[in-house]
């Protein structure tokens, strides 16, 4: 929008996009400042001094002017000199973006629930407030030819490995895309291998998780318009860590972590184990289980493979539909789908009792990973496994495991192998599996190759002695 205003007998040309500027700031600070200034405005410099805002550029470059106008700047030209003008940042950052930053998708009972929002400056603000160190560096770039999104690389100088940093910088520099929708877009473009269902960057919306990652030596990438922050390099086992583990005593944290590992294994293999045992390997069923299994399957006309496929697709349909329904209808359908559908399917003789338990438990178990992206991967991996089990039984499952392992072993995230500390076996790295007490965790993990290894020093209690009378 262009408008012409006369202030103190001077004609000013204002150009701005009225949808993205903060009108209040224009009225209150900008125009009022010009109107109330004492000095006479002769040229642009006087105008600059009169305006009580900072970040004012003088510019006559058309490209820069267009870019800045699109970002919410206002361009003021004096009537007598239309070649040059002032660019002032009056962008409206608040409108349209949500105010609250409660972490909804990654919930934890204990601990701060602060999450990032869509606005980049707010996110940088949150990070800067948490890590108070002069070594925290933000490097900003503009990516996306049509969206001109601001992308920021965040890292802690002196800790992070310069090789990783250079990799990220180089990949981001080479990136060419039209609209950067979300950091996931950046994630998929700069990741090492795009043909994998496994996430190679940790993406999170919680501030405390990003804090932990930065202090350990990861590199974070933030982008404007996305509440998710990606950080790399990651390993497969990072996706099973939940911030809640760190807020509980380490024994409980370890216990819950093991439950997650077991849940993952169960979720991938339970349905395919059912198919392969029922179809090919009746000999391994224990005596006590033969009765219940045969009795539950007696009225089912389908072979186990079709039964499992039917049930799995039903569960997937429920999940997809439930994600898109409005809340009120969604709740009802959840109950209906969960309980009634299962029971009715058994009564109608379409599935067996044991299968309902197995499928619903494995569906639940696939969501125990705190990061949503990994949960989707686990959910997906079950289907090829079921197909292989139906084709070749136990042998098929082993073939699937071989393929999976072969794929995982070759994955690299920003150059570090994905299965550290298992595959290039690092004895010291084995403490990633359990949530070690803080007294044992003073060194940074080795796969990140940080420049500084020690993060804090452990000191004993001065008032509690370390003998058995303490127990």
């Amino acid at each position, binding site marked *: 929008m262009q408008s012409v205003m006369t202030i103190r007998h001077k004609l000013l040309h204002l150009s701005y996009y009225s949808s993205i500027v903060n009108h209040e700031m224009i009225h209150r600070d900008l125009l009022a400042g010009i109107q109330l200034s004492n000095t006479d405005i002769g040229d642009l410099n006087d105008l600059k001094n009169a305006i009580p805002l900072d970040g004012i550029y003088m510019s006559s470059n058309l490209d820069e002017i267009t870019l800045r106008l699109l970002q919410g700047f206002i361009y003021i030209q004096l009537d007598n000199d239309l070649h040059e003008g002032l660019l002032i940042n009056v962008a409206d950052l608040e409108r349209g973006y949500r105010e609250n930053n409660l972490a909804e998708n990654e919930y934890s009972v204990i601990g701060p629930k602060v999450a990032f929002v869509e606005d980049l400056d707010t996110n940088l603000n949150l990070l800067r407030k948490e890590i108070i160190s002069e070594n925290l560096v933000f490097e900003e770039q503009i990516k996306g030819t049509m969206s001109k999104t601001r992308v920021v690389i965040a890292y802690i100088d002196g800790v992070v490995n310069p090789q990783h940093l250079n990799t990220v910088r180089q990949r981001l520099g080479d990136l060419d895309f039209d609209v950067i929708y979300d950091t996931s877009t950046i994630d998929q473009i700069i990741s090492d291998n795009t043909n994998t269902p496994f996430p190679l960057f940790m993406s999170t919306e919680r501030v405390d998780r990003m804090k932990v990652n930065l202090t350990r030596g990861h590199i974070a990438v933030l982008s404007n318009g996305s509440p998710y922050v990606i950080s790399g390099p990651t390993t497969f086992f990072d996706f099973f860590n939940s911030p809640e583990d760190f807020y509980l005593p380490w024994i409980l944290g370890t216990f819950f972590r093991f439950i997650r590992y077991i849940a993952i294994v169960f979720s991938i293999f339970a349905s395919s184990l059912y198919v392969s*045992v029922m*179809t*090919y390997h*009746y000999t391994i069923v224990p*005596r006590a289980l033969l009765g219940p299994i*045969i009795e539950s*399957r007696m009225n089912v006309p389908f072979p*186990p493979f079709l039964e499992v496929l039917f049930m799995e697709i039903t569960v997937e349909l429920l999940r997809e539909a439930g994600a898109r329904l409005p809340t009120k209808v969604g709740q009802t359908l959840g109950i209906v789908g969960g309980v009634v559908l299962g029971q009715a399917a058994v009564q109608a003789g379409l599935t067996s009792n044991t299968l309902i338990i197995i499928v619903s438990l494995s569906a639940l178990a696939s969501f125990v990973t705190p990061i949503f992206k990994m949960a989707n991967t686990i959910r997906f991996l079950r289907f090829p496994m079921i197909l292989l089990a139906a084709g070749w039984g136990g042998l098929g499952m082993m073939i699937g495991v071989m393929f999976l392992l072969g794929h995982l072993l070759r994955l690299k995230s920003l150059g570090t192998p994905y299965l550290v500390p298992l595959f290039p076996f690092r004895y010291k790295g084995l403490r990633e599996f359990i949530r070690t007490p803080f007294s044992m965790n003073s060194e940074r993990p080795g796969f990140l190759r940080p420049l500084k290894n020690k993060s804090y020093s452990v000191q004993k209690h001065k008032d509690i002695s370390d003998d058995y009378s303490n127990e």
Partner: protein
Amino acid sequence: MKKYVSLLLVCFLIPGCAKQEIIDRIKIVQSIGLDVQGDTYKSSISYASYDKKKRLDPITAEALTLPGVWLPQNTKSDDQVVLGQVRTIVISEKLARKSISDLAVNLLRDPTISNNAAIVISKPEISTVISKTFRDPPFYLAGLIKQNMEKGNTPLTNAHYVLDQFYGDGQDVYVPVLNLDENGLIFMDGLGVFKDDKLRLFLTEKESLLLKLLKDKPKSMTGSYEFKWKNDEAVYFRVLHGRRKILFEQNDHVTISLKLYLQIKGLPKNKNYDNKSNLLELEQDIKQHLTNEIEVMLKKFQMNDVDPIGFGEIFRSNHRNWNEQEFKKDTYSKLYFEVNPEIVILYSGVGVSAQ
């Protein structure tokens, strides 16, 4: 790379050839009963059935060779008959007296029969026993035999042991025996001992316990025993566990030292349970009794020229030049056994008995 992917995809066409045995569409055989009449072999198969509505009959077959009746062809069944979960193989006395070498060959060559299956001889008719198993819950017979081996008087034996004893030197085969009582219930009735491949003699239940004490591992050396004390009063005790050592002194002298831990369950009425001298006297008497009984049983084995305890095997492990024929002909009959049991009464319970 593209070559490998297309090869892989072609491999996925093969699963159509896999043999499916869907668990509720097969007949899962729980026991095989084998009999011989003249030249023809007969078999009677009982399967596990969880469907209350169907009529249950054993599947029978007849053929001139044992492999012909091993897995009866499906002419009498509406589902495929599978042998993967067979847990008992019941052979008739006639078949046992004729020869079990055919049975051993079949067990060896059939990969689907488990090595844990129990082989038993049945004194009554096979068809009676097998049709009786239909009236019990599935795998009842297997449970009966297993329970007796763990806690009763039957020594531990299964197809693996039988094959090892049959094909190995210096050891003769022994299998448990089934019988039907007056009410029609199946019970375990001692052991049957083979010489080479023919049934030679039957042992009573008491003797089978003594064999168990001489053969089994310490944890499964359990059983219950009843014997008559002086004044014709009966004492009943349970063996909890024990240890055993079999040694050779000189060439013909074998020492068997047993250490048994007992639990006294039934004493005569005029004896007191917590009188120490009583118990000591009881220990000595049990010792004496066991020594006698075991020596009698071993002499019986020597007379019948069978070796179920496997002295030949023990000799073979101790002597450099050992020949099975030589051992059987010369040495075995001349062996002198010295049995030294040591009895420890662990529990005698609490309680007062009549004074």
